[in-house]
């Protein structure tokens, strides 16, 4: 996989997802359940604003000093015995990764869930070279054997499929004879993957966060596959996005405290592994060699842009769970590896406007994501700014649209003005009959301003994503 996950034009893609009522129910249930758990977890933690301000400040500080911390991390990791390789782009990263595996004559690799390896298309490169790659996260594994279906959420990848579907897939592909009870299917997969763990030549992982001061890489999982991948194979290859770094363990405390609560509403995940170098000489398990591949792949473009702070992201998926658009179209509707508000803010600058200007229209600019982001990324301001740039660069259809978007920006960019405007519009009537608005509405209707404001409606929204 790469950043692009669909070739369908936006409208067709959205129609397809909107027509999938089973998916919409599943996503709506997931949002309600996980949002409830997250809110409870943070209520117990207390001082959410203080926590996220601290977390956001830490991430921002790292970005401001990223050259320093990358330098420090590489030196410390190397001193601990790891091999560190800096890769400018996807092809450098995958070529180097493949080279490691081929030099060790590896025929099988086990992998724990990693977004950056998806982003650079690692599995495809290894498989083309004849190396079997086994995803070991349960959701990823089920998607992999389901003819490489694509994840619809960055934390819970198989949200869009139900138990009957997976029973059928397991029966067809792996000879499963049991029922559709998740526990039974999970046990069956446990047995299958356990053999793979013990027989694999190489373990491939991502890195949730690296610690600059000690050269440590970390992995967070609930299933224990992260521990397995870093225990059984003799070679471990870690891929990490270049921004995924914290200065010391003190900051890791804050970031991990936010990550598990935001992602799954837990205080911590079942397992967090902190690995510094390969196993020591006298240790009997764990990797004999540890390779860390640090990937840029467009991140430096983001770093130098006005969108730098989107690199604060800790990949918790909260913005997706809170997003009303995501609720209806799932991760698949975006056609990008990183969906939801994060995807709309990040992907246009990470991978360029040429391919990703249409998707910025998915957002309704309701701002719900901003309220929950644990590192305070100004997501909807960024999405709006993308739209403004696209409009000003002449990529939107008409001059009239540019004018409208420009004015709209002045209003929506200010929450006070936006509140006043939407409140006022409900009794004043708002119909574009002349000027730039008229031109804008030639090929589309300006929607009536609804009786209830979206912000108010969203607070008391319906269950089940409106699916019948």
């Amino acid at each position, binding site marked *: 996989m790469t950043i692009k996950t669909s070739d369908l034009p936006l409208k067709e893609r959205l129609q397809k997802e909107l027509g999938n009522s089973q998916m919409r129910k599943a996503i709506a249930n997931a949002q309600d*359940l996980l949002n409830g758990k997250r809110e409870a977890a943070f209520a117990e933690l207390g001082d959410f604003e203080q926590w996220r301000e*601290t977390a956001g400040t830490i991430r921002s500080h790292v970005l401001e000093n990223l050259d*320093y911390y990358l330098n420090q991390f590489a030196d410390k990791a190397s001193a601990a015995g790891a091999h560190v390789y800096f890769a400018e782009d996807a092809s450098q990263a995958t070529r180097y990764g493949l080279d490691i595996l081929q030099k060790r004559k590896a025929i099988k690799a086990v992998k724990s869930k990693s977004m950056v390896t998806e982003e650079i298309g690692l599995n495809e490169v290894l498989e083309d070279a004849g190396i079997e790659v086994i995803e070991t996260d349960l959701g990823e594994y089920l998607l992999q054997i389901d003819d490489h279906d694509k994840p619809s959420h960055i934390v819970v990848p198989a949200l869009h499929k139900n138990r009957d579907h997976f029973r059928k897939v397991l029966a067809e592909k792996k000879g499963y004879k049991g029922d559709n009870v998740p*526990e039974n299917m*999970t046990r069956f997969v446990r047995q299958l993957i356990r053999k793979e763990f013990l027989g694999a030549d190489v373990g491939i992982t991502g890195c949730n966060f690296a610690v600059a001061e000690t050269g440590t890489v970390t992995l967070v999982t609930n299933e224990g596959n992260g521990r*397995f991948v870093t225990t059984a194979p003799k070679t471990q290859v870690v891929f990490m996005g270049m921004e995924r770094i914290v200065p*010391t363990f003190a900051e890791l405390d804050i970031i991990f405290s936010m990550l598990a609560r935001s992602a799954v509403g837990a205080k911590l995940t079942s397992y967090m592994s902190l690995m510094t170098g390969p196993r020591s000489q006298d240790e009997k398990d764990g990797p004999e060699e540890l390779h860390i591949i640090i990937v840029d792949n467009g991140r430096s473009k983001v770093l130098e842009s006005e969108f730098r702070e989107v690199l604060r992201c800790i990949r918790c998926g909260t913005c997706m769970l809170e997003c009303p658009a995501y609720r209806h179209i799932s991760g698949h509707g975006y056609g990008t590896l990183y969906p939801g508000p994060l995807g709309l803010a990040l992907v246009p600058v990470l991978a360029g406007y040429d391919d990703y200007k249409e998707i910025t229209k998915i957002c309704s600019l309701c701002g719900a994501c901003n309220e929950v982001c644990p590192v305070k990324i100004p997501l909807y301001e960024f999405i709006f700014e993308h739209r403004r740039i696209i409009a000003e660069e002449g990529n939107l259809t008409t001059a009239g649209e540019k004018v409208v978007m420009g004015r709209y920006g002045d209003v929506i960019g200010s929450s006070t003005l936006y509140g006043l405007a939407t409140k006022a519009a409900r009794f004043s009537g708002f119909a574009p009959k002349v000027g730039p608005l008229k031109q804008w509405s030639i090929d589309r209707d300006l929607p009536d301003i609804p009786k209830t404001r979206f912000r108010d409606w969203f607070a008391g929204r319906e269950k089940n994503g409106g699916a019948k």
Partner: protein
Amino acid sequence: MITGKEQFIARVSGCLNRTTVLEKPTEFIYPHDMQHNYLAEASAQELLDTFVTNAQTVGIGIHQCNATDLGTTIIQIVQGLGGPVVLANDPLLAGETAELLGHEIDDCHVWNPDVGREENMTKAEGAKVGIAVAEMALAESATSLLFSYPDNGRSVTLLPENSLIVIRVESIRPRLTQAMEMLLEQETLPSSVNFVSGPSSTADIELVRVQGVHGPLELSYIIVG
């Protein structure tokens, strides 16, 4: 070994509008100190009570005993679960406890750095119960902290179906903050530090929680002291 660093970091510096890496990072001041508030004034009993409650909430079994009874407590638990057993070679578990276990359990392997990787891992894979000792425990998240070292393989608490982790009552601290402070003070870090906060679990199929995916199906703590 490091490859490609200079060019890569020069580009990152360029993105930050400078030509070289700063001598030291810009000053960082924590805007708040809320992480130190949690159970800051708690007594040892409060820490223990919170730890136990939080452990039970996430399905971790709890046993408590005095140091002198550790051996018999372990034997009782293991007899309920069945062998074989693999043990970390920890002072708390070695000596009399190991001897006692050796008498009572047919197949009891103490992790041994003097024999090969295969033998240790095969024993761990075949074991029904794996037993190790935590360096520290955290009340807020019911976490146990495990260091890997030659006498304690990563496999001990990963491969067997049941995981038993011994926790010294005085090692229970408020939260992750204190664990990270302890790691900050380490002169050399172990190759792997594992924070265990529950049994292996997933919710990947319809968000239904299933306990026991790749790691142990059951996790229990024995609190000593």
